[in-house]
Structure formats: structure tokens, C-alpha cells
């Protein structure tokens, strides 16, 4: 079969540091092709060369049988390569029609936009994806999933032959993912190729045909996904043996070992309510225990975390900290009481991008590092050096801006931000989202170690294996209410899925 896209021997170096050496990628027409690899493996660099953001140092790219001369994202679009970025590049305040038609509006007399025709065409384009929405409404009034689908619809309406999707499901819930997969399958049937980049390996088995694995700037593996196992993919990404990993378990966790000898009660929540998205939430957290919060996107897991940490104001219920009735009014009061909260959205609520690793790491600890308003810089540097070493944070030095670090290393810095305050309670919302497999296991190990030291952890994760293997107990939420509680040992992914499915059934 003639390939639609063929990249081979691609080299790229930034300021003398090699990012790609001899990387290759081949995509057939109408194929859904997965691209996987740890952060820093070279996936984004390869894509950026393909879409004309970067110029390659060496190698050959052919697209549609011809040598490709794409020098800018604009030229890539004209050639039929469309990219759907993690951060959508649409205009939320403008209508759906305006977003879909932007730059290609049907005109009357060559000047005035023919709105009737524009709305009609937009509806037609969206209908092909099974989306039926009011195209006059602002795009921002729809869910992220719909917005993403609109972006895809726009790309396809511009006669894309290759659609690149970078982590398309990272902010979607299960039902939205299904819709997205339907669209991807539709693209395949229409003969459009899809390059699918994702950290969620389970998804790949559902919709991809082939998978290319990258490691350290090279293409190390390309195989049909049928007949492969998840373990083999992970092994290829890590460059390790599949059997080794099997013996060690999929995660670094072993929940349910806390057993009967639970430590002191750190926190109790009774009937905590902050609004319709969290109602009558109860829990008791002990020292050395991990409580998992299970549920789908929007089930109230993050809301529970925010209520406990003093971000959202309680409209009902009580939170007792170490037996004292002291609802935490603000995050700084929560930190004072020994709470840490690793937020779900690393970019929007976690890192301060232009600040250094050092300044990011000590942000929560700052009041304790300060005497008479002046920061003890010697102690600060000492602490930061300690955590960079202890957590294996890969950074040139502690003054490097955090935005230059990979996702996994940024997450480690944020984890260190909370470990540094010597917390009693750690609330971890998706601690391993968007980080590569290697860093994921390291982060899990860090969490496990702090639990062993007596920290109580509230763990929120969309990855079932993480929460099933990690948590001593799982509180399952649906639409802001607790529906059931599962206790380890004995929880299986199956049992968790059944608990979630059961709640779905009740809600319907």
C-alpha cells in the first residue's frame, strides 16, 4: 500500500542538543496511526516538523507521493494536514458558524458575509459528525468535547487528508470520548488518515490500526496494534523487558496494606455541601491511608477536594481537622493546618511558568522560610537541592524556568512543593495525568513513600488501575453524591467499573 505520509531519517537539534536522530513515521491513507513515547521522546518535535513549525536538519518527508516542502503551519493546512491541539485554537466567544467558517466565509457581492449560507453549510458539516447544535450560539457555551469536535469538523471541511490529534481525550469524560471515537472512525471510513497522540494506552487498542513508538529521539517500534499487548507497548516506550514489568505490577502502588491498624484520624467530613455538584459528602481519613475518589468527570471528585482545601465555601456540613471543628476557610489556612493540594490542571492552577524551579518549589513553604519578611535564601537553596535529588527532577539547575521542563518533571516539582511543607494530608488530583510512563511510576513511588511516613492521601485519578491498585478505600461519586464505598484488598477494575455503571443506571 502506498503510504500517504512517509518521514524517514529525520534529524533535528536545538542549540546543538539532538532532539531527533533518524526518526521515521509512515501513515497509510485512511489509517488511524498512534504515536506514543515518554515525554521528551521526540513526538512533538516530529509533529512540529511535519506541520512546518520547525525546519528539519536532515531526512526526507513525502506527503501524498510528493516531496513535501512545508515551511509553515499555514502551508501544512493548504497541503491537507490539520492539527487539533490540546489547547483548542478557536474563539470561544464567537458563534459556532464563525469558528467553522473563519477565513472561508461565503460572500455576497464579494464583501458581505452570506450568513444564511454560512449557517447552512456549518450545520451540514457538523451533521456529518452527528452533531446537531445551535450554530448561532457562542462556541464557548458548549462542552470541551463539542468544541473539540467542532475543531475537527472545521479541519475536515478544509479538505484535510491527515488530521493530527494531540491528546484529544485528556479533558473529555467517558461518553464524550465515545463520540470522539465515532468521529475518528468516520474519518477513517472517509479515507482521511489520523495521527493520534495519547498517553492513554487503552484508547489506542480501541481505535488505532498501527502504533509507532519513539524513544530518545528515535523511532524504535512500529507494529499493528491487533495482536499487541499494552505491556509490550509500555516495554517499547521504556526500553525494558515486558516480563520485568509484569512482575512488578502496572503501578508502583499496593493499596489495602494499611489493614486494620489505622493511624490517628486526620480529617472527617460530614454532610459537606458546596452546591449541586457536591452534596452530603462524608469521609474519614486516617494517617498512612490512601482514600481514592472514584467517578466520572464531573462526578464531584474535584469539588470534594476543593471543599476540603478551603477553595470553595461550604454551604452545609462540617469538616473536622484532627478532631477539632475547624472548617478551613482559605487555602492558606489549609496549608497552615498541614494540607497540600496538587491540582488537576497543572498549567492553569499549578505552575508559575516564568518562575524558576526553585521559586515554584518553595511557594507553599514560603511563610515558614521567612523571618521578618525576608526569605532565608540559603535554607531555600538547600531544600530545593534536596528535593531535586530525592525526586530525581531533571533540570539544568534550580534557576531554570519551570516552563522549560517536561510535564513529568513539572509535576514532580509541584509534588515537591507540597512535600516540602511536611504535610499531614495530601490531596492529589490526577497526579500522573499527562506524564510519561517512567515519570508516572516514579511519582507513584513518591506518593507510596510519603504514605509510609504517615501522610493521609486523597487520590483522584481517571486511570482505574492507579486508583484500584493505590487506594485502601474508594469512595465512588456520581453527580455530586456518594453512591458506594469499596475496600481493598479485593477491589478490581471490574468492580469499580460496575460500581460506576450501576450509578449510571440509577441516574438514567
Amino acid at each position, binding site marked *: 500500500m502506498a503510504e500517504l505520509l512517509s518521514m524517514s531519517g529525520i534529524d533535528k537539534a536545538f542549540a546543538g542538543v539532538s532532539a531527533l536522530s533518524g526518526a521515521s513515521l509512515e501513515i497509510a491513507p485512511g489509517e488511524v496511526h498512534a504515536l506514543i513515547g515518554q515525554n521528551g521522546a521526540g513526538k512533538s518535535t516530529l509533529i512540529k516538523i511535519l506541520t512546518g513549525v520547525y525546519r528539519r536538519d536532515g531526512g526526507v518527508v513525502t506527503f501524498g507521493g510528493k516531496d513535501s516542502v512545508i515551511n509553515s503551519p499555514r502551508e501544512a493546512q493548504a497541503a491537507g494536514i490539520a492539527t487539533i491541539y490540546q489547547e483548542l485554537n478557536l474563539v470561544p466567544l464567537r458563534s459556532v458558524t464563525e469558528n467553522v467558517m473563519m477565513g472561508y466565509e461565503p460572500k455576497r457581492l464579494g464583501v458581505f458575509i452570506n450568513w444564511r449560507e454560512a449557517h447552512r453549510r456549518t450545520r451540514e458539516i457538523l451533521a456529518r459528525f452527528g452533531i446537531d447544535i445551535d450554530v448561532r450560539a457562542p462556541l464557548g457555551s458548549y462542552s470541551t468535547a463539542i468544541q473539540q469536535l467542532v475543531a475537527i469538523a472545521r479541519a475536515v471541511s478544509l479538505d484535510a487528508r491527515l488530521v493530527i490529534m494531540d491528546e484529544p481525550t485528556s479533558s473529555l469524560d467517558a461518553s464524550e470520548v465515545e463520540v470522539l471515537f465515532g468521529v475518528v472512525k468516520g474519518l477513517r471510513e472517509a479515507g482521511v488518515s489520523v495521527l493520534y497522540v495519547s498517553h492513554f494506552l487503552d484508547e489506542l487498542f480501541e481505535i488505532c490500526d498501527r502504533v509507532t513508538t519513539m524513544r530518545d529521539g528515535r523511532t524504535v517500534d512500529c507494529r499493528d496494534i491487533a495482536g499487541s499487548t499494552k505491556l509490550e507497548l509500555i516495554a517499547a516506550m521504556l526500553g525494558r523487558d515486558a516480563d520485568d514489568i509484569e512482575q512488578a505490577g502496572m503501578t508502583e502502588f499496593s493499596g489495602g496494606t494499611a489493614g486494620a491498624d489505622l493511624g490517628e484520624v486526620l480529617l472527617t467530613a460530614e454532610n459537606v455541601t458546596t452546591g449541586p455538584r457536591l452534596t452530603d459528602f462524608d469521609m474519614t481519613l486516617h494517617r498512612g491511608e490512601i482514600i481514592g475518589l472514584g467517578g466520572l468527570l464531573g462526578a464531584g471528585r474535584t469539588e470534594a477536594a476543593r471543599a476540603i482545601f478551603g477553595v470553595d465555601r461550604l454551604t452545609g456540613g462540617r469538616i473536622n481537622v484532627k478532631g477539632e471543628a475547624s472548617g478551613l476557610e482559605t*487555602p*492558606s489556612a489549609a496549608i497552615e493546618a498541614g494540607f497540600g493540594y496538587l491540582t488537576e490542571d497543572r498549567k492553569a492552577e*499549578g505552575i508559575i511558568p516564568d518562575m524558576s524551579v526553585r*521559586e515554584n518549589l518553595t*511557594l507553599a513553604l514560603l511563610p515558614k522560610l521567612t523571618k521578618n519578611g525576608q526569605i532565608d*535564601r540559603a535554607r531555600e537553596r538547600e531544600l530545593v537541592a534536596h528535593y531535586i535529588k530525592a525526586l530525581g527532577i531533571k533540570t539544568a539547575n534550580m534557576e531554570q524556568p519551570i516552563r522549560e521542563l517536561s510535564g513529568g518533571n513539572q509535576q514532580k516539582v509541584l509534588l515537591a*512543593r507540597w512535600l516540602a511543607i511536611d504535610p499531614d494530608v495530601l490531596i492529589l488530583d490526577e497526579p500522573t495525568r499527562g506524564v510519561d510512563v517512567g515519570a508516572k511510576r516514579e511519582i507513584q513511588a513518591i506518593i507510596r513513600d510519603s504514605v509510609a511516613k504517615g501522610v493521609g492521601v486523597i487520590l483522584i485519578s481517571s486511570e482505574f488501575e492507579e486508583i484500584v491498585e493505590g487506594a485502601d478505600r474508594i469512595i465512588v461519586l456520581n453527580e455530586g453524591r456518594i453512591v458506594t464505598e469499596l475496600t481493598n484488598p479485593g477491589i478490581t477494575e471490574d468492580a469499580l467499573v460496575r460500581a460506576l455503571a450501576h450509578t449510571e443506571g440509577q441516574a438514567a
Partner: protein
Amino acid sequence: MSTQDTELGARPTKTFEWGPFLRTNGGLVALAVILLFNIIVTPNFLQMQTLFVNISQVATIAIVAMGMTLVIATGGIDLSVGAIMALSGAMAPLIFMSEFGQANPALGITAAIVVPLIAALACGLFNGILVANLKVQPIIATLILFISGRGIAQVLTNGNLQTFSNPSFSYLGTGKVLGLPFQGWLAIAIACVLFWVMSRTIFGRYVLAVGGNERAAELSGGPVKRVKIGVYMICGVLSGLAGLIVVAINSASDAARNGNLMELDAIAAAVVGGALLQGGRAPIFGAILGAVIIQLVKYTLLANGVEDEVALIAKAIIILAAVYLQMARKE
């Protein structure tokens, strides 16, 4: 860049790269260019008199620009600085020329400095509360005092020009220390203190954190509201001080003119000095450099007989160039 070596493929590796150099040192290069231009073109530029005039003029811009830099570092902006200058400037002569002030000269001068500064601080507090607690957009919040502050100053003085002769008070604007204008030293001293605050204290760190990512700063326990109120208060009190200096230089207080268009000079100086309008960066000495550049451009045009109106256009071009270099730096 180099035209001698145009062989394709043989990219000269030793060529000096102007782009990155200009992006990081644009301000200093601009300063050098302006100085060179003046030495060649402007008559009598290399005279002590020129230095005195420029230092005494630049000090007020620099002092206000430093306050503005802190506000901008939190992602805000303060349009009321000029009006606060007018207000504090109008209050001072009223106090030391009052019966009480003339009966107790020492106390009168002290009050004439302290009371206007307290008023300026209160103006900053007002701005800060609007921005931090009531979540009013900074540009709108400070527009209130931008309009009403000067109005209050004019009401206080009945719209009259107040002239006076008071050597002690005038020292603020005409005194000399080690042969250089007093207010120049004052600006340097303030810069040193603020630099220390920004680099060594928890307040400085929080200012940059709030500007860099407000949500993250709050979730990490940063006192976002207090920090914002703090920077507006600092900006207010520095504006008040600048207002007093202007009045001292002129031995007259004109509520209609004092600090007029200062907000633009201060914002321009801060931006030229490297402050990012979206926040997260507070180059204190950059603000001084920016103020010097703005002042020298004004001076150059004036000394060469170019009209005031043209000077405004020149200022606009400088701001444009500074913002362009910033965008290039951000990629």
C-alpha cells in the same frame, strides 16, 4: 547580516547575532544611540547643566515608573498616578502656608510632606480595594481616581496656581547632594530598597507569583488580595512623592498641570524597562533605564527645537519598539 559571506550552506558561525542581543539589551542600546546622537548633534550637550536638568526631570518619572512596575508585575495597571501627583502636590503648599504651618515652620514642613503622602497612600488603598476585593478591572478601577483625583486637587486650590517661597520645602526639588540633584539620589535609594524587596522578601516573591499565575499563587497559600492592595499603595505613595517633588522644583503648585500625562510616561518607562503587561516580571532598575530613555528623547527633541506634539509621537514609537521587542522575546 554580513554581506561578504553569502555562500549558501557555509553559514558563517562567527557572525554576531543582533536579534537576541537587541532583545535582551535593547534598552541599553537605545540609551547609547540617544547619547551618541546628542553628543554629535545637540549643542552644548556635554555640560554639567544638561546633566542637572535631566536628572531633576527624570527622577519623578523614575519614581512613579517604579511604582507602576510593581503594579504591572501583578498584572494590573494604575492610571491614577498623575492625578495622585496633582492631589498631593496641591495639599503641600496649603499646609505649610496655613496659619499653623507658618507659626510652626518645622512641624509645618513635616506635615506638608507626611499628610500628602498619607493621602496618596489612601488613594492607593482605594485602588487596591477596588481591584482586589471588588474585582474591578484595574484599568477601570484606577480611572475613577484618574478623573476625580485631579478634580479634588483643583477644588482644594480653587483652581488657582499657588506660588510660594519656601527654601526648606524646595530642597526636595532643588537641593544638591554631592553636587547632584537631591531627587536623583532619592530615586536611586528607592530603587535599591525596592530591588531588595523584590528579590529578597516574601512580599516580592508573592508579587511575581500573583502576576505569573494568580490561581496557582492563591492555591499555594499566597495572600493575593493583600499583595495587590500592597502594590497599589506603594504606587500611590510613590506618585504622591513625585507630586511633591514637582511642586518643589517649580516653587508653585498647579493642580491642572502637575503630573499631567504622567501615567503614560510611567507605563512607557516600565515597559521599555522590560516589565511585561501580563505580569510576572518587575525589573526595578529597568524602570529607571526606561525613565532615562523617555526623558532623554523628550530632551533631545526639545533641545533641537522640535515641537512638543512631535515629542508625543516619538514617545509612541519608543513604546511600540519596546512592546515589539518583548513579543519577540516571548516567541
